[in-house]
C-alpha cells in the first residue's frame, strides 16, 4: 500500500482537486484506492456527494474506538472509496496530542488497510499542525500544489527543510504547478526559476481552467464529466508521474 498526501500550508491552491482527480485516475487504472478527507471543510467529501459525518467523530477514529473501515464509503466510481471528513476534525490536533506517539498515529491507523487498498490519498487541511505532521510521517510521497508565485515557493522551502529533519522514514516531496496561467509573466518566470533549482517539481502542469472549477457544480472528478479535455489530460499526466514514483520507475521529466 502506498500513501500520497496532497499538502500545502496555503489554502485554495488545488490540493483537493488534485486528491480527487488523482484518486479517480488511480482507481481507473485498477488500484484499490482510498481517499481520506482530513480537512474539516470537507471539500472532497462534498465533491463525492457523501455526507460529511463519521460516527464517533474524529476522536473515535483516532482513539480507535471506531475502526477506519467502519467509516469508509464507496464513491460512485469503481475502486475508489472515501473516508469522509467530519466537522470534528477541527479538533484532531487535540485528540492526537493525547495519544502515544502523537506524530505517528495516522500511520498506525492506516497500516491495517494494506490488505484492502493499494493506494491511500490523504487530502490535508491547509495548516501546520499535528495533523499535518502525522500526514508527513504517514506518507510515502507528499505532493505539493504550487501556484507559481514568489511566496508559494517559500512555503515549499519550509516544508522541504522540515522533512529533511525527520529521523527514520522521510517522505519524498514533489511539487507540481497548479492553477497555472501561462499568460502571466510571473507564472512563467517563477516556473523557469524553480526548474533550475534542485527542488523536485513534476513535469506535468495543471492549468487554471474553468472546467476544474466546475467540479463543485458537477460534484465529480473532472475525468468523469470531461474525460477528453485538457484538465483531465493534465491530471492523467500528473498521475502517471505520481504512479511512477509510488509503484515503479519515475517517468523522465
Amino acid at each position, binding site marked *: 500500500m502506498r500513501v500520497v498526501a496532497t499538502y500545502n500550508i496555503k489554502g485554495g491552491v488545488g490540493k483537493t482537486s488534485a486528491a480527487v482527480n488523482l484518486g479517480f485516475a488511480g482507481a481507473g487504472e*485498477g488500484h484499490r484506492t482510498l481517499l481520506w478527507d482530513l480537512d474539516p471543510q470537507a471539500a472532497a467529501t462534498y465533491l463525492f456527494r*457523501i455526507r460529511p459525518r463519521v460516527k464517533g467523530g474524529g476522536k473515535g477514529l483516532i482513539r480507535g474506538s471506531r475502526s477506519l473501515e467502519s467509516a*469508509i*464509503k*464507496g464513491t*460512485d466510481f469503481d475502486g475508489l472509496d472515501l473516508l469522509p471528513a467530519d466537522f470534528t476534525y477541527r479538533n484532531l490536533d487535540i485528540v492526537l496530542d493525547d495519544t502515544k506517539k502523537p506524530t505517528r498515529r495516522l500511520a498506525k491507523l492506516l497500516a491495517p488497510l494494506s490488505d484492502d487498498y493499494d493506494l491511500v490519498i490523504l487530502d490535508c487541511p491547509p495548516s501546520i499542525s499535528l495533523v499535518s505532521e502525522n500526514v508527513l510521517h504517514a506518507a510515502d510521497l507528499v505532493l505539493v500544489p504550487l501556484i507559481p508565485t514568489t511566496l508559494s515557493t517559500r512555503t515549499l522551502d519550509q516544508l522541504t527543510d522540515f522533512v529533511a529533519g525527520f529521523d527514520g522514514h522521510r517522505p519524498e516531496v514533489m511539487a507540481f504547478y497548479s492553477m497555472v496561467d501561462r499568460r502571466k509573466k510571473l507564472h512563467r518566470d517563477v516556473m523557469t526559476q524553480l526548474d533550475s533549482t534542485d527542488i523536485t517539481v513534476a513535469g506535468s502542469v495543471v492549468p487554471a481552467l474553468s472546467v476544474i472549477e466546475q467540479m463543485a457544480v458537477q*460534484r465529480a472528478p473532472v475525468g468523469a464529466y470531461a474525460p477528453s479535455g485538457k484538465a483531465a489530460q493534465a491530471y492523467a499526466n500528473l498521475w502517471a508521474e505520481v504512479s511512477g514514483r509510488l509503484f515503479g520507475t519515475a517517468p523522465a521529466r
Partner: protein
Amino acid sequence: MTYTYADGAAVEPALAALAETFTVSDGVSTPVERTWLDTFDWRLYRSGWTLEQTIGPATSELRLIGGDGATIARQVGRIDPPARIEQVPAGPVRDRIAAPMRMRALLAVARSSGHGHTIAVLDAEQKTVVRLVADHARQLEPVARPLPVRLAVRPLRGYESAGRRVARIIESAVGGVPETRPALEIALAGTGRAPGDYTGKVDVRLAADQPAAAGIAAILRHLFDTFEVNLEGTLDDVDTEFLHDLRVAVRRTRSALKLTGDALPDLPVDKYVAEFKWLGDLTTPARDLDVYLLHLPAMKEALTVAEPADLDPFGVQLERRRATEFRKLKRGLGTVRLARLRENWRADLTAIGEPADGQPLGALAGQRLGWAYRRLAKRGAAITDTSPASDLHRLRKRGKELRYLLEFFAALYDSAKAGPLVRDLKGLQDCLGEFQDCEVQTGALRGFAEDLAADGKAPAATLLAMGELTEQLRRRQDAARREFGARFARFARPKNVRRMAALTAGAST
C-alpha cells in the same frame, strides 16, 4: 442480496416501487458474456469460492465470490481457458487463487451470454447508494437454455442499510426471497453436473450386506469412470494432474483386481491385470518427467552451493524429454489396443450387472483388510538395519495395497475411528515413499547428467549442481531409512492392531 425470477416481468414494477423513495436512474444495458471458471477437480469451489469472468463491450472483469455472495477480490482482466496460473493476469484475484490452483488449469465450467442492466439507486444528494443489476442471460455451456432473471442488489460500501431498505421494497413490491445459491449452482442445476462433482478420491456407495460381486463391480466401474473423464484432459495436455488421476485410477484398478478380483469369477482378471499394467507402464515416463518439472523450482531453491540458474540446462533437457514422452504417450493412448481395452472392460463391467447373491461385501472387505494389515505388519517387522533397499520397496507395495483397500471400503467403516490408523499408515508410506523416490531420482539424475555430458550441452556448473542434488537425495534417503523404525513401530503398535480389528469387524456388519 440477489433475487431470481422466472422472467424479466418483475423488474419494472420493482423499479417503480423504488422510485417512490429513491431516485432511480434509467440504467445502462450492456451485453455480457459470463464464464465461470474452476479447475477440473473444483479447487476454487472447495475453497469456498466461485470465479466469475464478465466480459462487456469495453470491460473484462474477474470476480472471486465467497460463499455468502460477497466479492472477495476483483480485477480487470481476461482468462482464456484452459489457463494455468501463469496465464492468469496479475492482480488480487490471481493472488488469491494461486495457492489452491497450484499446477491445475482453470476450465470453463459454465458460460452464458446476455445483457446486464445496471441501475443506480440515488439518495437525496444524487449519490449512488445501491446498484441494481438485472441479468438477462441465456446459458451456453454446459447446456444451451434460458436462465432465470437475476436481480442483484449491490449496496456500495458504507450503504448497507440502504441496500436492506431497497431489498425490502423489492420484496414488498414483487415478492421473491433472497437467492442463496451461487450463480454457478443455478447455471449447473438440472444439467447433470454440480459444483464439486468430481474428485479424484474413491467415492462409491457401498453397503456391508450387499453381495461382494456387486460392490467390487461398483468400485471398478467408478475407477473406470475416473479414467474415462481424465482421458481427454490427458490427451489435450491441459495440466499435469489429468495424467496423474488417470494413472491413479489405473493403479487402483490393478490393485482392486489383484486383491478382490476373485469376487468376480466370470471376469478374466489375469488378462485385465496384464492390460492395465501395460497401460500403467505406457503412462509412467511422461508422468515421471512431469514430476521432475513440477519439482524443479524446489530443487533450485534447495541448492546451497550451486546457483539456481545452473540447473537451467537440466530444465531444458527435461522439457525436451517430456515433449518426446508425451508424443509417445499420445500415440499409445490412440492405439487400437487401448480402444479395445476400454470397450471390452466397459462391456465386461456392464455384463456383471447387479448380482443378488454371494458372500456379503462386508465380510470380504473385513477379510481382505485383515490380510493386508497382517501381511504389511509381518513384512515390516522382518526388516532390520541391514535389510536391502528392495525389502523396503516391496514393503511399500504392501502398504499401498492396504491403503487402496481402505479407500475402496471407506463407506463400510467408521472413518473417524479409523483416522489414527490411516494417519499412521500414511506416515509409514510417506517414509517408504521418500526412501524409494530418493533412490529412483538419484539414478535418474545420474542418467540425465550422463546424457547432458555426452551431448556436450551442459556446462560444468550444471553437472556440479546436479551432483549437489544427488548428494541431497542421498542424505534424504538416509534420513528416511533412519526414520523407518519409528514410523513402522507407530503403525504396528497394539492400539492400531485393535483399531484394525475393530475396523474389520465393523466393515463386516
